[in-house]
């Protein structure tokens, strides 16, 4: 019997794939023969700065930075990798499956319409009466708008196969199962794009029945589907760098100094003064961080209003979280300050890599992608829109495209497109291999980032340290993950015979902190530390921290994790808008429906910062109360368009850690 050396199998496989791609260099010569033809074959390609940034403005006032793109040209033109062999599911608001620039990439009969009573359950095209754009249609265009057809622009993977699911219009668990690797529906997708999310203003428990169901399902399909190669679940980090919505008006606040008896005589003259308000409670529609409204601070000097892992799916090992990048550096007094993060992008230690999501398309470029067809629908109908969208632009007379799409909603599909190229280059790769390749080939950006420091009242505290280099040699930043995606470098590594796929994943249990550790959280910069001993010697892929904390003001808290190798990851930056505990108690019905709480109970954060390090040894978890003074944030009302300052006094009692543990994912 022939014995096969299993260690060389991956190398042989990779060699064969590499030879195959090399010998197929003239593949797709019917689509384009050279780089010039490549550029000219889609009329809006020249505007798509995320694919090739030549300093275009894409109909905005300002231009982007030359070279700040995901570098697709080599992958497309030299390697001829266009994503054709890869199925991508777009779980979103809908998908216009007969859009002129999508139809040739849409898998017939594979999409789903989850609206009850839909005429065609396989057609999630939004109704023509839709006001505003269809989010999913624009997302799909960024992944795989058909390339080289003389229409519109093109996707990152311009020949990848699309399926669309309007799950956001229904959001039932049964349809969630179908759209997330469900048998016969999305089980053969290699990538599932999820440009959606939820921005809680309270620490969410990870072990809820809802979340545990999803985790169990994702663990299963990532292990079993596609012959064990799994599915990449790409997730947008969120758009909450500066603000969050107030879900179901859960947060209400008693105004200090509001009138409780007859109004003062002078209220006729100054009716907006809080002391003249008849109501004692205030319910904002939107909540802004203090830094967001601080006119003396740039984004690079500001703390985020939320970390991505505040939403449990972004604290999951099975999701790949993507933050968003602008077309150019943030400009301060006419000079770029090195900050490439999109102004809205949620960030955090659970971000894997960053990709372009642009800005708003007015001052700075947004993304150019597909829109619902026709000038009586889509973004052409949105009030605050650019001239490009409304039918007056010579390259968009039918209003089938938009130049104002943005958000981490855009960054996620850009990343999904790159994943499609990687799998097209080497279909033998697993979902974790593809993630590994994106991390290894990402470009370090924003290298002049300076640590952000907050005054605790009792000393300074480094709240956002910026780039770190871990003990395995990986650079990591809470804003950019391992850096900006490089599609051509990723494809080259996927094709390389030297790439070694990852061994099977191993997961520890949640390992508790050592008994008897100090638990009280003092005010000031030093915090309280607990040790957690890990005996398994795994190569770390991700670490989850599970925490239960009693504290009177959750927004004060910073959570850091230090590995046995000495790498420190800030898993929860302070001044997050965990502000529900500062408001009035939430009605019980709403509390149950939304799962609100005012303390940390089994709340999980995830960090990718330790990638490649050895897990064995003593980890240190440190929780710090970074604010011994007042805490300010701002409410905003849509109707009045007014900001209201909300100031809360310090927690009257010291907080304490009631439980802490960590879990290693690795190999």
């Amino acid at each position: 019997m022939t014995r096969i050396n299993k260690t060389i199998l991956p190398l042989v496989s990779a060699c064969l794939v590499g030879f195959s791609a090399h010998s197929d260099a003239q593949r797709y010569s019917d689509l384009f023969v050279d780089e010039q033809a490549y550029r000219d074959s889609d009329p809006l390609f020249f505007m798509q700065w995320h694919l090739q940034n030549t300093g275009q403005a894409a109909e905005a006032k300002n231009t982007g930075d030359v070279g700040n793109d995901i570098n697709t040209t080599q992958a497309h033109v030299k390697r001829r990798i266009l994503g054709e062999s890869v199925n991508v599911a777009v779980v979103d608001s809908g998908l216009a499956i007969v859009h002129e620039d999508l139809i040739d990439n849409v898998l017939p009969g594979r999409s789903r319409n989850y609206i009850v009573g839909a005429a065609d359950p396989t057609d999630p095209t939004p109704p023509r009466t839709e006001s505003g754009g269809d989010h999913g249609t624009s997302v799909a265009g960024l992944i795989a708008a058909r390339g080289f057809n003389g229409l519109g622009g093109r996707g990152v993977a311009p020949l990848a196969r699309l399926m669309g699911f309007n799950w956001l219009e229904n959001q039932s668990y049964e349809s969630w199962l179908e759209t997330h690797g469900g048998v016969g529906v999305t089980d053969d997708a290699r990538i599932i794009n999820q440009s959606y999310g939820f921005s809680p203003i309270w620490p969410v428990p990870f072990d809820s029945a809802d979340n545990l169901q999803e985790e169990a399902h994702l663990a299963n399909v990532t292990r079993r589907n596609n012959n064990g190669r799994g599915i990449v679940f790409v997730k947008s980090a969120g758009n909450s760098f500066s603000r969050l919505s107030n879900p179901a008006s859960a947060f209400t606040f008693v105004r200090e100094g509001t009138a409780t008896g007859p109004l003062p005589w002078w209220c006729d003259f100054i009716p907006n003064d809080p002391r003249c308000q008849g109501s004692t409670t205030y319910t904002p529609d939107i909540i802004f961080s203090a830094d967001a409204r601080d006119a003396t601070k740039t984004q690079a000097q500001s703390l985020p209003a939320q970390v991505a892992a505040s939403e449990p799916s972004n604290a999951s090992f099975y999701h790949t979280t993507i933050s968003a990048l602008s077309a150019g550096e943030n400009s301060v007094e006419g000079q770029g300050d090195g900050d490439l993060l999109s102004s809205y992008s949620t960030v955090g230690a659970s971000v894997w890599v960053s990709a372009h999501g642009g800005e708003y398309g007015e001052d700075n470029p947004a993304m150019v992608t597909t829109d619902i067809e026709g000038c009586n629908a889509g973004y052409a109908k949105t009030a605050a829109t650019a001239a490009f969208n409304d039918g007056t632009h010579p390259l968009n007379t039918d209003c089938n495209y938009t130049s104002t799409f943005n958000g981490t909603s855009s960054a996620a599909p850009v990343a999904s497109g790159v994943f499609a190229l990687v799998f097209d280059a080497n279909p033998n790769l697993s979902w974790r291999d593809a993630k590994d390749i994106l991390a290894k080939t990402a470009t370090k950006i924003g290298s002049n980032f300076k640590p952000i420091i907050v005054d605790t009242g009792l000393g300074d505290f480094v709240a956002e340290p910026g780039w770190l280099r871990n003990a395995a040699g990986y650079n990591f930043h809470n804003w950019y993950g391992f850096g900006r995606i490089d599609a051509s470098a990723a494809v080259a590594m996927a094709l390389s015979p030297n790439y070694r796929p990852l061994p099977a994943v191993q997961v520890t249990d949640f390992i508790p902190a050592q008994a008897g550790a100090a638990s009280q959280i003092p005010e000031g910069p030093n915090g309280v530390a607990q040790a957690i001993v890990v005996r398994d010697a795994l190569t770390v892929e991700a670490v989850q921290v599970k925490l239960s904390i009693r504290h009177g003001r959750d927004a004060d808290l910073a959570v850091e994790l230090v590995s046995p190798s000495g790498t420190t990851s800030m898993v929860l930056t302070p001044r997050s808008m965990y502000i529900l505990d500062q408001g009035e108690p939430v009605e019980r019905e709403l509390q149950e429906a939304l799962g609100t709480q005012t303390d940390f109970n089994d709340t999980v954060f995830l960090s990718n910062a330790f990638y490649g390090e050895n897990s064995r040894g003593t980890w240190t978890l440190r929780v710090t109360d970074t604010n011994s003074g007042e805490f300010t944030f701002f409410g905003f009302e849509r109707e009045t368009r007014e900001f209201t300052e909300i100031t809360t006094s310090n927690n009257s009692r010291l907080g304490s850690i009631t439980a802490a543990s960590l879990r290693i994912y690795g190999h």
Partner: protein
Amino acid sequence: MKNIICLMSVIVSLSAFADTQAERDEKLIRDLELQGELTVEPAKTKKLTINHSSANRIDAVVTDEVVTDEVTEKSATDKFTPTRIVKVVLEKQQSAESIANELGLELVSGHDGQVAAFKVSENQNILDAVATLKAHAGVIAVKREQVMRLNRPQ
């Protein structure tokens, strides 16, 4: 004279600060407009109301639509619809399949884990099924699904 100059410079700097703050606020509001967060449509404002079918138990939260001239909030959480799916967390040794067989429930997910979701058929009483699951020795936690549009495009 010095005092006047000092006072003037304070007024000028305060005025400049106010201008800067106004610019920042305008930028934040403009960003909201461009994201469609402030869309003013003379349309329907959705109000959250809660229907109680029995004391202390939420049966459904539905929306009333009121025609107004006010801003329309596209709230992601304006509707909670209970379904016939029940999610459970199981004891370690408990099999979801055995519970499904025992109680005549359809196993929707969780064939090999510590969690499971069951579908209660139309000819079974959903509230009774939830109560039975809660009382089951192999079950740690039970939650009847409420569909809510919590997730939003982002």
